[in-house]
């Protein structure tokens, strides 16, 4: 058998077995909207931990982080900082969010806006923004999968073919299993990923330099400025670092899929405990960085840093081992992709289509529509994945700049009684407009700070001022759920 056949067979075998496990777990339960989206709110500490880890450690961490370590150096440190600090942030609002979600039976992020501000236009708008910024994150996963199949195929399979295969697998998987299936496949993914990362993170520096310390010494001698900021970039200095860490750690749980995952927990306190232990999962990240740093000296001159990890593995190990690493990478792309698709489809069907276009739909019809949308949303991401070429980390930062604009609406909604729907709406629109303007006119970083963070600051100020200028509104979270439900039909915005 040729090298590529061996590597690809190993990848496909592992992916198929994992998918079968996920589908089995999903197929055992009857799927209604509540089961499909929040798994009946029955997940304890371990499953929530696994589900969240499954969502967090995506192909961005695997290929993107090592890719930036390879191509940019110092600025990549932001990833370790934000992945730790995001859980610190979550400690202070996820348990409260869960309580509110439970009280009002929330399934999605837009349900939160709908309930708190009593405006279906605001909720529908929030769901559209959510879906739009999930697309680059989804594109990231498909691009990552494409890279994996391409490199493991030793050039035998084109990237487009590879991405179409990946697309079909992901869509089929989501279609059948829903959120419970995803949580179980996360178990396999996490074990494989941990093994892959610990092994190559330590073995590769040892193989080429005799140890991690020796590798860093060699790197510092060859490229003295690579490991400090701004590293191999011109614009990513300390103010960029601070603003980017703030944007991404504050915005982390503003991702509609992570926001929604909150509701799968059994209790608010599960989430509080989760926030204490989750930072430890970040300890795998330095090992991924080691691979990227090792690759600088071993496989120099790659045009696309995202290829660094797999290229050095391919050069250093036999094809079957490349297959195992590739499979770990493929699952770290597929599991989050499945969750992203699920979140986007549910948001659109429930909070946009039913609210704005066809209010008579039952929950079952919404669930059916969401399943059909799986194909549409994945196709859009596939289109972008094939026709654009941004690095994986940049794709993620685009998404963050967008979804973090939900932060004022969420934190004020929970903790500030004086906030009004006009304030949140204007703030959100302004924030997104600033992100779009600075992004499209290529002014990121803007005056040395992350453009998304700049937009977030503008958003907060606008939300605050407009809220104070508009008349006070009742806090709908303080009403009891029954009367709030009755009000749903009559409240117009």
């Amino acid at each position, binding site marked *: 058998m040729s090298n590529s056949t061996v590597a690809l067979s190993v990848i496909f075998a592992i992916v198929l077995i994992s998918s079968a496990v996920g589908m089995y777990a999903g197929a055992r339960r009857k799927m209604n909207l509540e089961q499909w989206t929040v798994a009946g709110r029955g997940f304890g500490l371990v499953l929530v931990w696994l589900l969240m880890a499954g969502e967090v450690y995506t192909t961005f961490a695997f290929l993107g982080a090592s890719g930036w370590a390879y191509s940019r150096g110092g600025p990549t440190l932001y990833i370790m900082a934000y992945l730790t600090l995001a859980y*610190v942030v979550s400690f202070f609002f996820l348990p409260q969010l869960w309580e509110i979600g439970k009280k009002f039976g929330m399934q999605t992020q837009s349900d939160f806006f709908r309930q708190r501000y009593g405006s279906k236009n605001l909720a529908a708008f929030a769901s559209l923004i959510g879906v739009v910024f999930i697309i680059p994150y989804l594109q990231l996963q498909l691009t990552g999968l494409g890279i994996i199949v391409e490199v493991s195929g030793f050039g035998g399979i084109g990237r487009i073919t590879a991405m179409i295969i990946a697309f079909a697998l992901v869509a089929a998987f989501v279609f059948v299993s829903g959120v419970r299936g995803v949580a179980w496949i996360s178990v396999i993914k996490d074990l494989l990923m941990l093994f892959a990362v610990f092994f190559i993170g330590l073995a590769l520096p040892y193989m080429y330099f005799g140890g991690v310390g020796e590798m860093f010494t060699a790197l510092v001698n060859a490229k*003295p400025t690579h490991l*400090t900021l701004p590293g191999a970039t011109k614009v990513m200095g300390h103010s960029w670092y601070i603003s980017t860490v703030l944007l991404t750690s504050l915005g982390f749980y503003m991702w509609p899929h992570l926001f929604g995952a909150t509701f799968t927990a059994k209790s*608010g*306190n599960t989430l509080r405990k989760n926030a204490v232990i989750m930072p430890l999962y970040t300890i795998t990240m330095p090992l991924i960085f080691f691979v990227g740093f090792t690759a600088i000296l071993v496989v120099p001159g790659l045009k696309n840093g995202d290829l660094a990890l797999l290229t050095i593995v391919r050069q250093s190990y036999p094809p079957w081992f490349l297959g195992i690493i590739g499979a770990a990478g493929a699952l770290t792309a597929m599991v989050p992709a499945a969750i992203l698709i699920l979140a986007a489809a549910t948001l659109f069907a429930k909070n946009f289509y039913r609210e704005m276009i066809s209010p008579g739909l039952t929950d079952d019809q919404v669930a059916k529509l969401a399943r059909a949308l799986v194909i549409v949303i994945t196709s859009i991401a596939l289109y972008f994945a094939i026709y654009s070429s941004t690095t994986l980390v940049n794709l993620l930062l685009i998404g963050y700049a967008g979804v973090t604009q939900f932060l004022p609406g969420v934190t004020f909604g929970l903790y500030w009684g004086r906030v009004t729907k006009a304030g949140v709406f204007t703030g959100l629109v302004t924030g997104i407009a600033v992100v779009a303007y600075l992004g499209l006119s290529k002014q990121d970083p803007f005056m040395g700070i992350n453009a998304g963070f700049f937009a977030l600051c503008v958003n907060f100020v606008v939300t605050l001022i407009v809220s104070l200028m508009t008349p006070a509104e009742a806090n709908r979270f303080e009403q009891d759920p029954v009367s709030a439900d009755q009000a749903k039909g009559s409240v117009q915005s």
Partner: protein
Amino acid sequence: MKAVPYVLIRKPSLKALGVGLIPFVAMCFSISWWDRVFPFIFGLPFSIFWIVAWILITPLFMAVAYRIETARIAAEARRKEGGAKHE
């Protein structure tokens, strides 16, 4: 661990927020202090050592914040039950 009684919506305490701010200062705001390669510690450049150390230290601070929050919630629930009949 026993279940913690909980009432809607409870703002986090300033004490817990203060504890949560410490990892932020260490990993984010203080970067100009630790963004350097030397000295190497345990074979790691100083900045990477610093970040890795704080990945390990952060859960300890969060465990402290957890105790502060759960103790406060339990105390408030007890006060409430003492005052009026439940619900």
